[in-house]
């Protein structure tokens, strides 16, 4: 069944994703860490779907769709940002700073 270990692993992976988002300045790596957090949530859904039926798998399906859409749009934004500033460093992105 492995419910507890799976939820624990999911907790560790989600925290690592949060740590990566806070730690890195490269917009692409921050984006990868967001994907890592989505994966951790997917693991929770799959682990609980064992007990509560296939609705959890449907949620994983939707999360993956949203992640794919997010990756496409987000990477296009990073591309436009790079063209504008010649950098993907988040410290150089202060357009809304006032």
């Amino acid at each position, binding site marked *: *069944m*492995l*419910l*507890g*270990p*799976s*939820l624990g*692993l*999911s*907790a*560790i*992976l989600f*925290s*690592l994703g*949060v*740590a*990566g988002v*806070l*730690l*890195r*300045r*490269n917009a*692409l*790596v921050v984006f*990868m*860490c967001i*994907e*890592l957090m989505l*994966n951790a949530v*997917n*693991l929770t859904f*799959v682990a609980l*779907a*064992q*007990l*509560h*039926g*296939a*609705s*959890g*798998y*449907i949620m*994983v*399906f*939707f999360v*993956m*769709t949203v*992640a*794919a*859409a997010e*990756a*496409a*749009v987000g990477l*296009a934004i*990073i*591309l*436009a940002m*790079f063209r504008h500033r010649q950098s*993907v*460093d988040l410290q150089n992105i202060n357009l809304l700073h006032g």
Partner: protein
Amino acid sequence: MTNAVFWFFAGAAVLSASLCILQRNPVNAALWLVSTMFSLAAIYILLDAQFIAAIQVLVYAGAVMVLFLFVIMLLNLGHAASDIRGPSTIAATVVIAGLLAGELFVLARYTPARLAAELAQAGQLSDPRVVFAAGDIARHEAQVNGVVGAIAAPLFQTYLVPFEITSILLLVAIIGAVVLAKRKV
């Protein structure tokens, strides 16, 4: 045996996720993230979710990560300087992520029986043991409908409208990506 395989892939997932957030080179970070996703796919198979494991490899490790590597290549970021923030941010990150991990570990002690027992003490209108039925429901559904059928049946019946809305979301994402990545914005 299953436990040993699980702990092997869990260790691999945590190790490659840590390396992903610590690698200076974004290409290396992306490849370590692919490794994490493959480990997770193996764990999905252990959790009786073979279809999700296949989708994980195809969509995440295949499509999404190739998109990431493609953009890294396009921006020519292969040899960037270290972009890890300063010591005060590192300390704050350790505290915040540690607190979050602690909270999530408390939540991870969830079991259906325990939740049902706690709700029964609180006094509910419906019997929580019925609402939060514990058991191998997923494995039972897979035996009745097959591995793909267990997902397809609810997806095209109960969740048909959300599934159709998903197609609109993907269309919007395609148009948005094309408009944003065009030369003159």
